[in-house]
């Protein structure tokens, strides 16, 4: 009898996570280069533990309730999420734009909450999206407040993986610290502001669009005030909002970026 290894279990989970539709045993085995019998055993084990479920009683599979529960438990580890959600609602209402919350995990940022804007054309980012820390406005707003030695460690990490970094990164980061926010023009544009405690960024709030262009000065000021209000709430009880993964060596954290 063939036993299914933990490795193939995790591979199957990853594959189903990345898939845009339910997958059958044959597709799973082909995609992962596993014998069909191993793929079958893996799916049966995952099914039994609630990590995978049958898609509408077909012979195809999607992630199960336990996988979804795990995700919720993961987000709950960032208490900044619960604190920020009503403030994100407020910003989305004022700006009409989709408003997201990002946190740092190792040398990455990940999107942990999103409130859709009221404007007709809205983007729909996916929760759990991962980027390297120098990619995108939300990431850079966090990165701008890293201590110098962390910035150096990040650049070394990028180098060892031969990944490209903007030569103007340091200037960009200095500019963010000066302006208190950053606007990046690609994908219709995103404006991001850090939630700060003690000079470092607990998280960032990223708003679709260029808030300085489309909005009245008083609305922009109100948005800045809201982000400051979140920072103030954090000051009241900073320990609660400490990043759950801050004690890990960032270089040991490997995540798939999109």
């Amino acid at each position, binding site marked *: 009898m063939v036993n299914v290894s933990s490795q193939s*279990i995790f591979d199957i989970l990853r594959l189903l996570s990345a898939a845009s*539709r339910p997958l059958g045993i044959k597709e799973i085995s082909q995609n992962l280069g596993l014998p069909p019998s191993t793929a079958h055993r893996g799916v049966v084990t995952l*099914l039994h533990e609630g990590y995978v*479920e049958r898609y509408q009683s077909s012979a195809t599979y999607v992630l199960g309730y336990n996988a979804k529960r*795990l995700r919720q438990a*993961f987000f709950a580890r960032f208490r900044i999420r619960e604190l920020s959600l009503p403030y994100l609602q407020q910003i989305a*209402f004022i700006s009409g734009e989709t408003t997201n919350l990002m946190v740092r995990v190792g040398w990455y940022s990940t999107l942990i909450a999103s409130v859709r804007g009221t404007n007709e054309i809205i983007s729909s980012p996916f929760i759990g999206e991962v980027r390297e820390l120098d990619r995108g406005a939300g990431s850079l707003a966090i990165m701008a407040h890293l201590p110098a030695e962390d910035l150096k460690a990040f650049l070394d990490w990028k180098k060892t993986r031969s990944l490209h970094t903007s030569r103007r990164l340091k200037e960009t980061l200095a500019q963010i610290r000066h302006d208190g926010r950053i606007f990046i023009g690609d994908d219709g544009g995103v404006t991001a502001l850090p939630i700060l405690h003690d000079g470092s960024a607990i998280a960032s709030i990223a708003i679709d669009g260029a808030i300085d262009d489309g909005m009245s000065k008083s609305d922009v000021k109100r948005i800045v005030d809201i982000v400051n209000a979140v920072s103030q709430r954090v000051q009241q009880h900073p320990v609660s909002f400490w990043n759950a993964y801050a*004690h890990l060596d960032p270089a040991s954290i490997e995540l798939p970026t999109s």
Partner: protein
Amino acid sequence: MTTAEVTPEGARLLKSPGNKATARVLTVLSAVADHGGPIGVTELSRKLGMTKNMAHRALATLIEHGYLVRDASGQFYELGYGVIQLRGHDTSEPDIRAICRPFLEKVHILTSESVYLSIIVGQTRINIDAIEARGPRVTHIQRGRPLPLHITVTGRTLLAFLRDSEIEAYIKAAKFDDYPDAIVTSGAQVWEHVRNIRERGYGLSRGESTAGLTMASVFAAFIVVDGQNRPHAALTVGGPADRFSLEQAEKYAPRIVRLLEEANRQLHHIPAYSPMATT
């Protein structure tokens, strides 16, 4: 449970020792997630009825894949960053504004008056959606302008659905002197209004002057709650008193309450934010 979906052949497969070890890895992962905080190997193995050795091996596998991490002390295990990867093709998140929008529209059609959706942010209420009536209307809303909860009937209705201890905490922190002309200017008055709202089931108010209103007006505020009866949001309808009288508001109220039962049903399984979580 999905167990029922496992075929007899599948059940036989699950019994083989190697597959059992793999299943154990998933059981351990679920148990750590359920625990909600850091958990040690002794407690975990006791909870799951497995030997410490078995638990250790499962934990090591999960750490290797990033699904678990050691906590800062190194003694306990917590959910890891690798969980981000579990995404699935359904990535939509519940959105209170999107869920409530059709109900705002229905109440607007029913009453022809302005309708607002408000939530608690800290010690204040803010509007997150609105449909404004045509012609003379109650107020030119300032988008997202926060007002302390005790100032408006919307805020007081949200407050009335919090726990008594939370209301006490609010009163303790409230700056009543900032709004000396408000209807409510003391803790005792907050409680009086809260009792009225709880008894009636919704908030009702005539002629508040604080929100920059220039004419007599009537507001009725209705609550949208989760399965634990915690407030998600308030839906407020308001109009000039000569068009939207207290009597009219009372006449519409039962129909609006019935309409919102459907909203409550849709929001039943989505826990409401704890607005004062850190205070």
